[in-house]
Each structure stands twice: as C-alpha cells, then as structure tokens.
C-alpha cells in the first residue's frame, strides 16, 4: 500500500498545528476542534497528523482514529483544489439533485467521492446546506450555486477552471 504521508508538509504547517494543540491542551472536549483546525492546515488528516494530535493532546491514537472515521467532515485522503458538494437534502432531491450528480460525474469523469486526475476537483454529496429555497443547490468551497439544471454545470465549473489557466 502506498502511504499518503509521503506528501511532505512544511515546518510552518507543523508549527501551526502545535499552536492549536497547545491552545486546547488539558481542555476537555478539545479533540474535535483541534481536528477541524488540523484539516484546515493540512487539507486532510493522514496517519502522521493523527499521531501528532494524539500525542499532543495525550489521548489514545485509537480514539483520534475513531473520531476521524466517525465524522464525515474529516477526510483521510487528500482532496482536490476545489471540493464540490452537491446537496442531497430532501428539497434538492425532489427538485432533481440526482441529475446534477450525474451531470457532474459525466463532466468530471469521476464518481462521487473521487478526485479528478489533475487534482482540481473532488466530488462529494453533502447533507442539507439549508438553502432549500434555491434547490437544487451545490457548493464549491464556500460558494453556493442554486436553481441548477444539468446543463448549467459546465458553466459553474468554468469559474474554477479559468482561474487555473
């Protein structure tokens, strides 16, 4: 198995993580906030980061791993530059979110949960984002796109592909 940890992180990233750990050390219930910050810093939570968090907060690694795998927000795989989340809340679903997922899979040539070969996009489905009035909805990073139809997908993607060029 190829270990994902081989992607090297910078000293600065580790320093940032240690600062976060210091902030929550000895504070009850700090594990989840620390993991949130760690994912912001590194983009995902590979084994070596989990070990560092476990040692820093003095909790068993098994507990850290248990939490990471329990919550869908935490990822052990690196994600693309942009994460697309198609809302699969009820309002979006009854207004055709399944077609949006299909259009994206076709356009990006990946399945849900995968990342494009060039590392630009990761395709995810999300829980209700609470923009039901605009259903169906998708998010790219923190941007929200509403009132979608399958044929609007290429246009949405273009915003992010352009910035790459």
């Amino acid at each position: 198995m190829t270990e994902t940890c081989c992607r090297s992180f910078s000293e600065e990233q580790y320093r940032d993580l240690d600062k976060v750990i210091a902030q929550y050390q000895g504070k009850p219930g700090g594990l989840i906030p620390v993991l949130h910050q760690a994912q912001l810093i590194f983009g995902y939570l590979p084994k070596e980061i989990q070990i560092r968090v476990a040692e820093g907060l003095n909790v068993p690694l098994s507990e850290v791993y248990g939490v990471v795998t329990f919550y869908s927000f935490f990822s052990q795989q690196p994600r693309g530059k942009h994460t697309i989340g198609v809302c699969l809340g009820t309002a979006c679903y009854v207004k055709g979110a399944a077609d949006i997922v299909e259009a994206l899979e076709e356009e990006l040539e990946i399945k849900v949960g995968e990342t494009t070969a060039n590392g630009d996009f990761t395709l995810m489905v999300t829980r209700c984002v609470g923009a039901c009035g605009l259903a169906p909805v998708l998010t790219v990073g923190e941007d929200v796109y509403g009132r979608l139809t399958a044929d609007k997908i290429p246009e949405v993607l273009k915003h992010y592909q352009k910035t790459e060029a």
Partner: protein
Amino acid sequence: MKLYRAHVLVCGGAGCLSTGCKAVLDRFTDEIKAHNLEEEVHVVETGCIGTCDLGPVIVIYPEGIFYKEVTPDDVKEIVEEHLLKGRLVTRLLYERPVSGGQIPFYNEIDFFRKQKRIALRNVGMINPEVIEEYIARDGYIALGKVLTQYTPEQVIQVIKDSGLRGRGGAGFPTGLKWEFTMKAPGEEKYVVCNADEGDPGAFMDRSVLEGDPHSVIEAMAIAGYAVGASQGYVYVRAEYPLAVQRLENAIEKARAFGMLGKNILGTAFSFDLEIRVGAGAFVCGEETALLASLEGKRGEPRPKPPFPASQGLWGKPTLINNVETFANIPAIINQGADWFRQIGTKNSPGTKVFALAGKVNNTGLVEVPMGVTLREIIFELGGGIPNHKRFKAAQTGGPSGGCLTEKDLDQPIDYESLVAAGSMMGSGGLIVMDEDNCMVDVARFFLEFTQDESCGKCTPCRIGTKRMLEILIRITQGKGEEKDLELLEELAQTIKNTALCGLGQSAPNPVLSTIQNFRDEYLAHIRDKKCPAKVCRALLQYTISSELCRGCGICARECPEKAISGEPKEPYFINQEACIKCGVCIEKCPFDAISLI
C-alpha cells in the same frame, strides 16, 4: 442617534448571498454616496427576510416596499426613482403567482401577511452584526428583568405557564426540562444549545443564528440563571459557516457590553458561552449523541434515562434546548406567559417556523401560529404548486417524519395532530411534492439517508434499516414481490420498538407513512412493474411514436448504445434490451416523437 428618512434593508441570508446580494449591497452604498444621500438613507444588511426563491430581495422603509430579484444594475434606478423621486420601480415588485397582480407592500404579500413572528421577530429586520440594533428592539431587556426582579423559580414558572414546547422535534415541555435541570443535584451545570440542524429541508435555526444571534445568547443566559449554570455551549453544524461566524461576532459583542461574562449587568450572575462546531454527523442532533460529541468523542447516543437534565455533559446536569426554542424565551419573558398562550392551540401554544421548500411557488421560512392548516401554509403563504401541477404530499419531520396528503390539508397543525396523521412536527421542514414525485423513491431516499447516518451502535438501526433499504431498492428496480410490503412493515415495527435512540426508532416512519398513504403506488411498482410518477428509471421505457417520427435518424446516431435502428424516412425503433435509459434520444429528437412510458 442619527435619524434617517429612509432605510434600505438588503437581505443577507444564505439564499440571497448565493444569488449575489453582496454586490447589490455594495452598489447601494456607492449609489447613495454618489447621490449625496448618506445623511438621509441608511443601508442595512439583514438576516434572512424569508422569501429565498425571490432573492436578492430588499425592503425599503418607512413605506415597507418589497423589491425582488434585484441586480446591481437595478440599484441606480431604485435610488433615483424610489429614494429621490418617491416613485416605485414597478418591474421589481412582487407578483402574485396564481391570480396575478403586483403587490408593492411587504406586509400585504400573502407570504408575510399571514405570519406571526416571535422566534423570527428580528430576523430580516436588523443587522445581526450590530448589537445596538438588537437592543433597540427590546433586546436584553428580558435578561435584565430576570436578573434583577425574578428568582430562578419564578423564571421557570413563567416558562412553564407559557406552555412552550421544544421546537426541535419531540415537543417536550420546555419549562419542565428547565425545572428538572434546576432541581438536579450538582454544583456544576451546563446549558447547551442544539444548533445541529440536521433534518434535510429545515433551515430555521440557521436563519435565527445568522439573522438574530443575540436572541439565542440572551435566552441561554436566562436559562443559565434559571438552572444555575455558568457555562453554555452552542453546538452548530459544520455546514453552516456563516452562522458560526455571526454567532462568534455576537458573542464577542455581548461580552463587550457586559451581557456575557463575569457579573452580567452588574449582578452576581456570571455566564459565558463557547461555540463548538460539529463535524458532519446527523445523529449528533440526538441530545445524548450531541453531548458525546461535545466531549470530543464519537457522536454515539446512549440509553436514557439518565436524562441529560440529571447526567449530561461530563456527567453534570445539562439543559439542552434547540435554537428556535431559545429564540422564543426573551419574548415570553417580556410579554408574559398569558400573551404567549393566546397564540396557537391549547396544547401547543405559540408559533412554529416552517421551512417551506420543494414544489411550491413561494419557498422560504414562514412562522405561523400553531393550529393553522396545511392548506393555508401551502396554498396561501406558499402560493400553491408551480406549473399547474397537482399537490401530492407534504413531507414533515425529515427522515423521522412522514407524509401528509390531501386528506390532511384542512387539519389544524400542532404536535399531536401531526403524530395522529402518521407524521411528526420534527424541526419544521415542510417539503411539498407534486405528481411528478414517486413516493416509493422518496421512502428509499430517506432510508438511504438514515442508513448512511446510522452510527452503528445498535443492531436494529444498523442492520434493520439496511434490510429495509435493500427491499426498497428492489421495489424501485421492478424486482419487488407482494410479500415485501408485509416484510417492510414487520421490520419497521421491530426497529421502532428496539432501536436505541430517536434516530433509529423513527427511521422507519417515512416507509410506514408512504405505505399507508400510497399503497397503490407501491403495488404499481411491485405488480405492474410501473412507476406512475415516472421517476424510477428501471421501470420506464423509452418509445418512439410511429406517428410523430419522421425517420431523420438523429436519435440513432446519438444513441451511445446503438440501441435505435430504422430505415430513413420510416419510423425508428428502440431495442429495449440494449437501451440504458440515458435519455439522450429524447433530448435530441427535433419532433418530440420520443416519450417515456
């Protein structure tokens, strides 16, 4: 304080943000400056005004004129016509969806006219980032009153007398919860706000946190005083970054104003708040799972009793209420239990916020007195079903609820009546479905949701919902058998009786409710291998009408599976065995000769 002759309220709710209200806001600021109106007109970015599908929306006071779908390019005209010359920009006014005709005034539009706003009293009216605006609308008066004039027992008595019930779903009397927590032995106690609004289709808590965060902060401080807690936590789901940001801002402002922290308002009472962000687990909306998550663990529920009121966060007595429940508290303290009891029904006093979404003309948030009918909500406030389609069902209670049908339209809505109709209040998501929605598919959708979100701790939920889902998938693929319905019902009862927490116990509800109300639709899938709503793709056939087909051959060329054949100028045929039902042929046919049956 400066007086302005006009206020422009620009909705900064999540819906309007995604349709570009920021650019509208910026343009207003620029144009007002350019026209030297800065001393006369004040622009305010508010929380969600409620009509999400019409965004970006603005309301201009003192007249209360409502403009919809405003783009930055419209702003100059609004400033010059409305704000300078006093003339309406008619092309941006609201139009009645069914009967037609324009309505300029905000409070005359059906969607707003029929509402009674208590929990949402400030949402869409004030700038949530400015504490003074909250204070100007009687904010923190209730806290002051409680701390200086009431004993904790008196506070609890008011809440008990008001009859307020938990707005998060189950409808447990709030005052009792407060009393249990107060009476529980222990020095250290906690107040927790459940803002893990996980029901798909419900977004009222998000709207309160984004549009009026101080009402929650004030209520939590009141609760802290009543139950004897000095620390509170707000558990917000990670999907709501804006809510977290506005709440953080509000907590800081409240501290700076002495409404949180040590010796609040100069009294002996100290109380502070911390935000904890969830990490994407629906089950954390269940209170014991939420507490586990707050403690930094996997969000798995545990059996009750002991209830959180006696053993909650870190084993200490803990009061947990949801956002909307808290938002009602300051209003009840200020205006009294009797006032609150006059609104709503006898057993469910007050109002309820519903998130109206799905196949309905006006989508968004509505707060109505308990006891209104579904018909009023969907057809009056909601403006009916779009595209002249027929109403089929309204789903309430999310994955734990059920479907209401035509026969329930005139039933007054409260906690009990919804349960009697085979659904539940839940957090107030109300998703309208029309004839194009397949109820078997909807049941499958919810089961897929609960199956995915099941924490796996107890067997009935982990395995039982999986078996139910497998059966439903089979039915939607045309492989169902008649005995499947019986099996589904039997499994459902077992899971209801034996699952550990509310998520598992209520997971079968969408299936039971759809079987009860739409048995024929299930039978059509099972016996006739047909999906009447034409949703379940495996049960559909693409056919070419021999009358309409001109034999152009476009479909045959476009078909990725080469499943279409025929002679030029003669009607073509689809080989059903080879057809993968991708729908390309329908899209490409210039004569509309291909249809789904």
